[in-house]
């Protein structure tokens, strides 16, 4: 009697012949091209999102490094980026008296055009006070500003403008001498330049006004509780924790980016889908007779289905791994060339791409699977 066994017919059981991978390995050139193509698609899917994530994260570099726990803005304002906020400077004093507040400092923020001769760049100028809060947190060289006609500029900005310590940059018709070069003060929305608060108040013709009040807390105080307390006692102002403000700004920028990113990632997905589909279609078309033989010798459709899907998944997963590695390698190169942007492959992005690649493989296997299901095992009697 023939071998009678329970026959769980998975082609990927340990100790069983792995027909799916053996078939793929049979034509190594096509395998390499297919994996390369899928990896390219994954790079397309992942890197744009990684650039968006990295750039969005870097966009809040000021809030993330300035050292404040709470920010007070004009009533109803819950963003710093692109938001208009004007407060009486007196608010700084009243906020400073709130329980738990260690220091309160008003800052001015203004998008300006900075020039050095023929070179012109958009910059976010920050005006801060003598208390120091709100100014640059890391100096590459030089010192902080001490006079109305002095400035500290971001290192990348200095490089692009071609200026160094002692040189003068111009905003409008006024010149400002560079006394310091700051680091880690660049973002997609503009590189940072620091001046005295009064300088920007004068430029904006807003004496006695500040745009925001930065607040640091004494140890042991909860930022949210202090923000709530300030909100209760300061009509006309909105206090918000730095973490929430940062999150709001990131969401704002993400919303601006997300549509074009989705178009690009969908394109990447479709490219990958086409590659997987074409590879699976040609592989299975060439091996239709093999599938006919397998049917003839008793392989059920479920076995053939698993074999084809196994091939598609193997292709996709290897292509995914390669694509992810290429993206990770490309990140430092991209940020080296364009310092304004960041490249961060988040777990969510990687998982999203994995989901996309699994979907690619499953959709790509649909047509081949349908074709194999229709294979007539009687073809084995036809002469090859």
């Amino acid at each position, binding site marked *: *009697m*023939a*071998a*009678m*066994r*329970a*026959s*769980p*017919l998975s*082609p990927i*059981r*340990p*100790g*069983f*012949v792995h*027909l799916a991978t*053996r*078939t793929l*390995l*049979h034509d190594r050139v096509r395998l390499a091209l297919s994996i390369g193509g899928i990896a390219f698609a994954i790079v397309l899917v992942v890197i744009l999102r990684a650039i968006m994530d990295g750039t969005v994260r870097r966009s809040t570099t000021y809030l993330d490094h300035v050292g404040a726990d709470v920010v007070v803005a004009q009533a109803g304002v819950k963003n710093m980026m692109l938001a208009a906020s004007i407060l009486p400077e007196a608010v700084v004093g009243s906020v400073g008296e709130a329980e738990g507040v260690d220091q309160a400092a008003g800052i001015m923020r203004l998008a300006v055009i900075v020039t050095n001769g023929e070179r012109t760049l958009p910059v976010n100028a920050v005006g801060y006070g003598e208390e120091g809060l709100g100014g640059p947190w890391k100096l590459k060289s030089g010192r902080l500003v001490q006079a109305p006609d002095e400035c500290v500029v971001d290192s990348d900005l200095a490089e692009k403008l071609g200026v160094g310590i002692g040189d003068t940059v111009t905003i409008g018709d006024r010149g400002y001498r560079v006394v310091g070069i700051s680091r880690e003060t660049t973002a997609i929305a503009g590189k940072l330049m620091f001046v005295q608060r009064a300088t920007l108040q004068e430029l904006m013709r807003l004496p006695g006004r500040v745009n925001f009040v930065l607040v640091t807390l004494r140890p042991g105080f909860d930022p949210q509780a202090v923000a709530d307390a300030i909100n209760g006692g300061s009509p006309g102002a909105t206090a918000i924790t730095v973490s929430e403000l940062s999150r709001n700004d990131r969401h704002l920028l993400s919303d601006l980016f997300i549509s074009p990113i989705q178009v690009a990632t969908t394109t990447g997905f479709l490219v990958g889908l086409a590659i997987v589909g074409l590879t699976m279609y040609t592989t299975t078309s060439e*091996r239709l*007779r*093999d599938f*006919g*033989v*397998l*049917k*003839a*010798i*008793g*392989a*059920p*459709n479920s*076995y053939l289905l698993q074999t084809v899907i196994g091939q598609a998944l193997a292709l996709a997963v290897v292509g995914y791994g390669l694509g992810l590695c290429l993206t990770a390698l490309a990140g430092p190169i991209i940020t080296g060339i364009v310092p304004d942007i960041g490249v961060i492959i988040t777990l969510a992005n990687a998982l999203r791409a994995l989901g996309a690649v699994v979907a690619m493989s499953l959709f790509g296997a649909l047509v081949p699977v349908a074709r194999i299901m229709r294979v007539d*095992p*009687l073809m*084995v*009697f*036809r*002469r*090859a």
Partner: protein
Amino acid sequence: MSTNLAPLVLEAIAKRYGQGATAVEAVRGVDLRVEAGEIVAIVGPSGSGKTTLLSIAGCLLRPTNGRVFILGTDVTGMGQGTLAGFRRRHIGFVFQSFNLLSPLSARENVEIALNLAGIGGREARERSGSLLGLLDLTAHAGRRPSDLSGGEQQRLAVARALANRPDIILADEPTANLDSGAGHRVIELMRSAVEAGEAKGLVIVTHDVRILDVVHRVLLMEDGRFTPSSSAAGPS
């Protein structure tokens, strides 16, 4: 007709292709009983219905009329899924074109038939190794079919057919693509396998008159029927 223990019994098998005026009667009421240990050859001109009959015997094609019994089990009404399971456990095939899986090694070509029956790991390796030894292919176990000669490929196909110790082996022109020496060897090995109990019965569809002296019975098929000249023979 008693079907007890006979590896293969065909009762009044008929197969018609098409309908109406264009219908073709490929097989017309054929009866066949293959006894345990018996080797039967079916010969006949092209288009006489031999391969259709073999396809029906192999549960690959449903007859229009009649019944098929494999070791006493009536398979005629079984569904496709059940038939697939039945084929992998009870029937071995040897084809003219070998139909080996080119991405797999010789050993894997045998093992995959075992895998389909749920046998894997060491047991599958031992069984495939034993069969490759039986068919003098041990030295070629790791080679791909494309690296083997025609005779070696057909011996490998026989090894795959024997993998699950089938009740019946159905061979379609197994020597057609081989030179006389290789063809003779393949037939001898199949006969030895039946005599050794590796398979219970063997049906060979062939044009090759050289192999008729090694079979027990020769059936001549013409126009979808066995002719009266079909006769018992005796292996030399």
